[in-house]
């Protein structure tokens, strides 16, 4: 799949979730919905911040690459709220599309995430049929997104 109209290859989808099982289920279902994007998995907020702010010895974002973040909220070390805050207050990184994908549907949490600049908030349904359906629709939606590149 190429991003329509730009000739770019599709964005790398970063799944930021401390639960490996969730990451596998999300990826499987998005792939089943037809996404052929590359996936990367981060198990806490610190890891994904290090990735974009180029801290530490681990993987870093690549110039010219486009990214799309699927962000969980409750994670060890640095939670999703703080990741959102740091990314969205950066002059360049705030362009990154962030989809919050978490297990709670607390209205205050939804509000807080939107205030901080999250683009979409989706609850992971516990019921698996609903979960699969939510991921299928999310996959279809994501295939339509045009994502700007960010300078690392």
């Amino acid at each position, binding site marked *: 799949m190429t991003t329509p109209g730009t000739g770019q290859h599709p964005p790398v989808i970063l799944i930021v979730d401390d639960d490996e099982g969730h990451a596998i289920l999300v990826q499987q279902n998005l792939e089943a919905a037809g996404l052929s994007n590359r996936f990367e998995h981060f*198990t806490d907020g610190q890891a994904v911040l290090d990735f974009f702010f180029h801290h530490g010895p681990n993987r870093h974002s690549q110039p010219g690459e486009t990214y799309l973040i699927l962000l969980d909220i*409750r994670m060890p070390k640095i939670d999703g709220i703080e990741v959102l805050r740091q990314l969205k207050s950066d002059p360049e990184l705030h362009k990154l599309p962030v989809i919050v994908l978490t297990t*709670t549907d607390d209205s205050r949490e939804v509000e807080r995430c939107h205030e901080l600049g999250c683009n979409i908030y989706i609850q992971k349904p516990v019921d698996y049929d609903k979960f699969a359906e939510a991921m299928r629709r999310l996959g279809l939606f994501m295939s339509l997104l045009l994502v700007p590149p960010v300078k690392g």
Partner: protein
Amino acid sequence: MAPNDYHSLSKEALVTRLENFEREASESQRDLVVALRELRDVKAALDEHSIVVITDPSGKITYVNDKFCAISRYSREELIGQDHRIINSGFHSKEFFRELWTTIGRGKVWHGEIRNRAKDGTYYWVDTTIFPFVDEAGKPRQYIAIRTDITRRKADEMVLQQFASDLAEKNKELETIVYTVSHDLRSPLVNVQGFGKQLQKACEKIQTAVSSASNGQVPVEVLKQPVESAIPQALKFINAGVSKMEMLLAGLLRFSRLGRVVLNIQPLRMNPMLNELVAATKFQMNEAKADVVVEALPDCLGDRGQTSQVFANLIDNALKYRSPDRPLLITVRGRKDEDQAIYSVADNGIGIPVEHQPKIFEIFHRLNPTGTPGEGLGLTIAQRVLERQKGRIWVESKPGVGSTFYVSLPAART
């Protein structure tokens, strides 16, 4: 009044009138005496119940009753001629008194609650009614203030307010816990459901292969994927999810039971307690080549079992999060700060970055969930245990240098 007609009256009539006069005079005098007696009784009762003061229009005290002297701890001589600034506590605003004076200056009754300061510096609250007496022109001639001591009630109100705000805080805390736990319990459920479905699909695949095996032989290639990867992966996540929920529920139960444990607050000798705790971890300490130094500690007031658990947890954490680069050294110190005993448990372990520090007391939060065992409850419980004993816990830490956990408890009276 009798008409001025004496010159025309007969002697008899004059005598009768004189007799009438005398009778009326003594009657009205008797009435006066009765009225005075009543007034005196009312005043006695008032003096018994209330604090009474009379001032002139400028506010200078012209009369105080005994109760005023008693509560203000000033003598009558010290008060007469002064104004009320002598007992001003500085608690109320200028506007408060301006409004009071405007009201009574217009001849209107003022009612309110005032905090005053007695001669010995103590404070007392009075419920006050000031009644202005006005002259024919409507100008106040004098003010009588009648007051009731409400110091006790005010103190109770303050306690009540404190309770209410404590309760509100507790409620907020509880909400956070419910929120956290509901999220944490849902997470494994998503896995159990999702991988359950994967298991079901793998089984269906095998069933189809079995039922379509014409010669009773199932081709291995069809079974490979479900048997070698799908089923083991599904089982791994389902089992992990179930254990996670089990652990969360057990932890939650343990946490909730804390609030019901009856505390036995007593003076605690901390050096023997720490020595015991260190002795109990001797094996792990030796294995880790760790050293523990316990300096002289002040005694405190607390529950023996619960306080010991807090320190055991801190020592255990120091062991768990030791640095691989250097042998672990734990130093336990203590000092007295007024009525508080403050202890520190310092290590030279991996430390905690500043941005992660607020998280460490959160229920079920783990900074490094894969590296070390644990349920993310130790520090949450320590905080809760200490709170119930009027204590506190906080941390200072530098990544790569080490962490120091501080514990404060009421000091033992010596």
